């Protein structure tokens, strides 16, 4: 009797894990199936015909995927450069200097996230339209930076706080100027954390839809916009292929983050 009770214990756990796996891999499977389906309609559970003709058309010169992909990467790279460029000095100041309202400053960076996206972007779009930034790469990058800066500054602050001050003092004592100390000691030690924050910003920018739509469309087309157009047009094959392309950098970068973002940095995020 006792043994059977123990034997049955795996059932709820197995069910839970099964549901979790289905929740994660179900949509992904659907995505992959759609990406290679030539013909698939109700009530059939699986595609009727498989093939890569949609891949060819997506990557053909007439298809917009290549242009959108290039545009997405350019915007993401610019967003990273801009965000990290701001986050390094800001994070260092927040971590090291005795700033008044330190907590308030960190909180202010969250504000763009705190308000509903749509009204914010509609207003930004109106503002950018007046000053001629609508439909430009710069305009879209600026919108992405407001998003990316939160990750960048918060993680950079944590990365700098995690560095033992004595390491910097040792460099000063050896005769290094404040700037030299930052370049030779602080920055290299903080680099893994900064790299991780750059990856977050990159992914955030690559995925961003709402802001790009209001500020960039129709002149600027990124992969999420292409996906939206294809999806709303009922073209699930094109949408699925675009989604798969978007998935590649995400997975690649998650592996990078796992490698570089150390626990002592993570524990200082937001402090």
């Amino acid at each position, binding site marked *: 009797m006792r043994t059977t009770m123990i034997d049955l214990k795996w059932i709820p756990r197995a069910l839970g894990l099964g549901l979790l796996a289905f929740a994660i891999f179900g949509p992904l499977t659907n995505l992959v199936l759609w990406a290679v389906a030539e013909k698939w309609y109700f009530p059939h559970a699986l595609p009727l015909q498989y093939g890569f003709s949609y891949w060819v058309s997506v990557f053909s010169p007439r298809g917009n995927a290549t242009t959108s992909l290039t545009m997405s990467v350019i915007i993401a790279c610019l967003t990273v450069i801009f965000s990290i460029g701001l986050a390094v000095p800001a994070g260092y100041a927040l971590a090291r200097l005795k700033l008044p309202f330190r907590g308030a400053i960190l909180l202010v960076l969250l504000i763009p996230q705190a308000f509903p996206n749509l009204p914010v972007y509609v207003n930004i779009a109106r503002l950018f339209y007046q000053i001629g930034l609508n439909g430009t790469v710069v305009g879209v990058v600026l919108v992405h930076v407001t998003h990316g800066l939160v990750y960048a500054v918060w993680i950079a602050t944590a990365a700098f706080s995690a560095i033992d001050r004595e390491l910097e003092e040792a460099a000063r*004592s050896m005769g290094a100027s404040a700037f030299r100390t930052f370049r030779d000691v602080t920055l290299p030690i903080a680099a893994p954390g900064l790299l991780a924050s750059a990856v977050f910003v990159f992914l955030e920018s690559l995925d961003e839809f709402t802001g790009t739509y209001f500020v960039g469309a129709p002149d600027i087309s990124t992969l999420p916009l292409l996906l939206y157009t294809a999806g709303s047009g009922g073209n699930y094959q094109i949408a699925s292929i675009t989604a798969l392309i978007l998935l590649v950098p995400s997975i690649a970068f998650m592996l990078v983050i796992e490698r570089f973002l150390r626990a002592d940095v993570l524990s200082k995020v937001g402090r």
Partner: protein
Amino acid sequence: MEGYLDISQTRVRYGDNEILKGIDLSVRKGEFVALLGSSGCGKTTLLRTVAGFNTPTHGTISIGGRDVTRQPPDKRGMALVFQSYALWPHMSVDQNIGYGLKLRRVEAATARQRIDEMKALLGLQALGSRKPAELSGGQRQRVALGRALAINPDILLLDEPLSNLDARIRLTVRHEISALQRRLGITAVHVTHDREEAMVMADRIVIMNGGEIAQAGSPQEVYNKPNSDFVAAFMGAENVVEININVFGSSIGISEGPNNRKAVINRGDRTLSSGKAIARFRSEAVQMAAAGAPPASIQDGLVLTGTVAQVSYPGGLWRHVVHLGEVSLIVDSATRFDEGSAVEITVPETALYIFPHP
């Protein structure tokens, strides 16, 4: 006497707390000075102030006549060895040792030679390409020392560099550091809370208490002639009894008390006035005998009478806990006295430190 490193009237505060309350200290070129004190006495603050990481609110610090009080740490020509060693984790042993040379734009070949010299000096030859994380505590400590010595600093500052080492390694590293310092003729200031470490390593010991210098002098001086109750206690004279004294001319008379006999000792250079006083002495500096022995001359020193409460053998001498009424003393003796036996403890004049009752 003009020193090389001169600290005068230095005061440092953190917020409302005054950590250093006016320090005057002068260190000669080539001298090894130990700042000794318990935690919170301001010794590390003083070292960091000399290094340039704290700015005094008052007073000056000068090196060879050059006022450096307002200069940043990198312009002072000193090298600080941290308690945590503070080795840069992203650099190899060679890079850590060579960093100061790189900053000074020393030619690559010359720097290479200097790094090898340092490694040979400290026995790190095989470890040049390792990262600090791959070294043992003792090896890290030596890398930190090599990094500081590589630049030939005017003054070497050591902030408890031995406190993170195993007790056994610490004993050898102590001698290594002081031998090295003597050989290279470096001026060094060493912070420690370990009395023996300070005694063994330093030419001069500066005992600090509550942000002030309690006493400064050679190891023999502070050990044998403590100038205050605090210094005597800190230097190991932990047995304390209350006595009544009469000062007359060049002698001090100790009147008979409940636990001590009448005695007369030479005043020497003690500055005392008649009345209540406290006497301090070290456990090992006394003779113990069974009570009832023929009374010694009153000029032999202070004779205390008590009963043994506990005996133990820590090695070498027998350690007795002796009760004198309320007071309990620790007395070491070559012969063992049983628990409960009545004993007489004779403290010779030279081992007796008398201070006014607080």
